[in-house]
């Protein structure tokens, strides 16, 4: 098919506009990276716009020498790994039985779970409940308090329902019980769905800050996002960080904040290219039956 001149112009403009969209999306990240490795003087005087000036690793050295950030990093890994494992366990436990037509009270139990998607008791009753359970300021509050989400149970249930019953029957002929059928037949088949759901949970765990901020007071337990909030949003720097704000040739408050931002997003930047396709798939599945 021939493309006319007007169409050529159309395509060129479209390519260019998309390039701009891409740049607008990337620019903040580029700026943060460039500013974090530039000299404080160059950043404050506005000499850094795209590329770093007078490269120095002072800010990174300073940030990485702080115990706070390592503790928070460790906590985030803990909450993400353990939390996601618990999420997946609960989601499987909820989804598999509900995928069985023979289950008694199936529709009632489904409604019991799905209803929580439409109506939530809200911030305060949830908080008071955690307090009543004596889970305030414990790691368990974060791990257990958010152990599963109705949406993903339904998503996985739909996936399980699509697996033909004949497979279950063949397992039963071999004398397998429901648990064995789940573990040996259903879970291996559901691997792609489980990976997608686990990644959704994991990204939420990694990025979650609100409830960690509300439920955790002890600095030894807070995840990275809560520390970041204190450091870069409130700029409410602790004593240790405050001494870092002194003018120095190697770092300043700004370059330290930018270095902290970049350090906190590195893991996401590394895994993101590999996990994004799962998210796209997940959205498609969710869009078919939300």
């Amino acid at each position, binding site marked *: 098919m021939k493309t006319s001149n007007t169409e050529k112009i*159309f395509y060129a403009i479209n390519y260019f506009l998309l390039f701009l969209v891409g740049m607008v999306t990337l620019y903040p990240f580029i700026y943060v990276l460039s500013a974090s490795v530039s000299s404080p003087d160059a950043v404050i005087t506005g000499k850094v716009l795209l590329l770093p000036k007078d490269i120095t690793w002072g800010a990174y050295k300073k940030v990485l020498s702080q115990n706070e950030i390592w503790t928070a990093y460790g906590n985030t890994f803990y909450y993400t790994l353990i939390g996601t494992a618990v999420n997946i366990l609960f989601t499987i436990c909820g989804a598999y039985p509900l995928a069985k037509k023979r289950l008694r009270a199936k529709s009632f139990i489904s409604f019991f779970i799905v209803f*929580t998607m439409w*109506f939530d*008791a809200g911030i305060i009753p949830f*908080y008071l409940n955690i*307090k009543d359970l004596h889970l305030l300021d414990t790691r368990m509050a974060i791990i257990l308090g958010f152990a599963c989400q109705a949406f993903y149970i339904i998503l996985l249930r739909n996936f399980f329902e699509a697996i033909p019953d004949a497979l279950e029957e063949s397992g039963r002929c071999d004398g397998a019980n429901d648990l064995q059928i789940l573990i040996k037949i259903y879970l291996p088949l559901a691997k792609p769905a489980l990976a997608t759901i686990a990644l959704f949970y994991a990204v939420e765990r990694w990025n979650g800050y609100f409830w960690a901020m509300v439920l955790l007071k002890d600095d030894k337990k807070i995840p990275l996002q809560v520390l970041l909030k204190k450091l870069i949003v409130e700029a409410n720097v602790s004593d240790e960080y405050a001494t870092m704000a002194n003018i120095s040739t190697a770092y300043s408050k700004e370059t330290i904040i930018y270095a902290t931002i970049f350090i906190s997003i590195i893991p996401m930047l590394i895994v993101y290219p590999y996990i994004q396709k799962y998210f796209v798939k997940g959205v498609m599945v969710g869009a078919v039956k939300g």
Partner: protein
Amino acid sequence: MDMTKIENLDHLKSTHKSQSVRKYFVRLKNDLIRDRYLYLLLLPVLVWYVVFKYKPMWGLQIAFQDFSPYKGIAGSSWVGLEHFQKFLGSTYFFRTLKNTLIINLYGIVFGFPAPIILSLMLNEVKNKSYKKTIQTITYLPHFISIVVVAGMVTNFLSPNTGLVNMIIEHLGGEKIYFLTKKEYFRTIFISMNIWKETGFGAVVYIAALSGIDLQLYEAAIIDGANKWKQLIHITLPGIMPTIVTMLILKIGNLLTVGYEAIILLYQPSTYETADVISTYVYRSGIAEGRYDMATAVGLFNAVIALVLVYAANTVSKKYLESGLW
């Protein structure tokens, strides 16, 4: 004679009934034994839902109490609708409801078309690797935590060392402390959300676009339809069901705001345009400890939100012949 017949009949009926009741329980018992592992799996999940989802709902009754954490729910006295009346009569009611609605409406007007436009633009890209690169880049902010994004916004807009103000100064303008000015808050918040979510929001539309039959375009080209006409007559009608579904979802969530992001960006000087119902609940409840009042406000919000979602689903069922779930 007749009487005994009837009595016999009654007797027969009741034995029949008790038999069928017994049969039912026998079957139930057999089913429960047969499916014991399924129930075993479900048990922890149901217990979790009771403890972490339904127990807080039980706790909602403090919205109607003069609640004291020391006395607990059982020991606190009832005040009926006092907290609701107080809230509805206060200046906070109008301010937070207005801000919730305005921020969401702006979000729909400016934020809703953005992913649609992006997906249409991406759909016209023939070079696959270019398309993929732009997609990958634009999805990225969705995966970055809101704390980092709000942190970048705060630092870029900072009055002395922020990038934006440095550029303004270079251009000879006056520095502005954007985040303390109430007239800028909504613009900042909506822009931030558009930057963060447009790319990922486009995924749904890209999927819908890939479902349009290519033969339609070929036929249209033979008929001499230009790009614009193809867009109006084929592309847009093709993704219209998706657009309508997403719009109904948005309208159903008119009372739900990303308050976690607002908490990171607002401050007392911008409360007038930034304070929404959820942030007010958070402030009065968690920060000030007025649990009963905050619960009442939250319940008020949740009930209206539920009605909206229900209405949205009904509309969707009626006009799209499929519910949202």
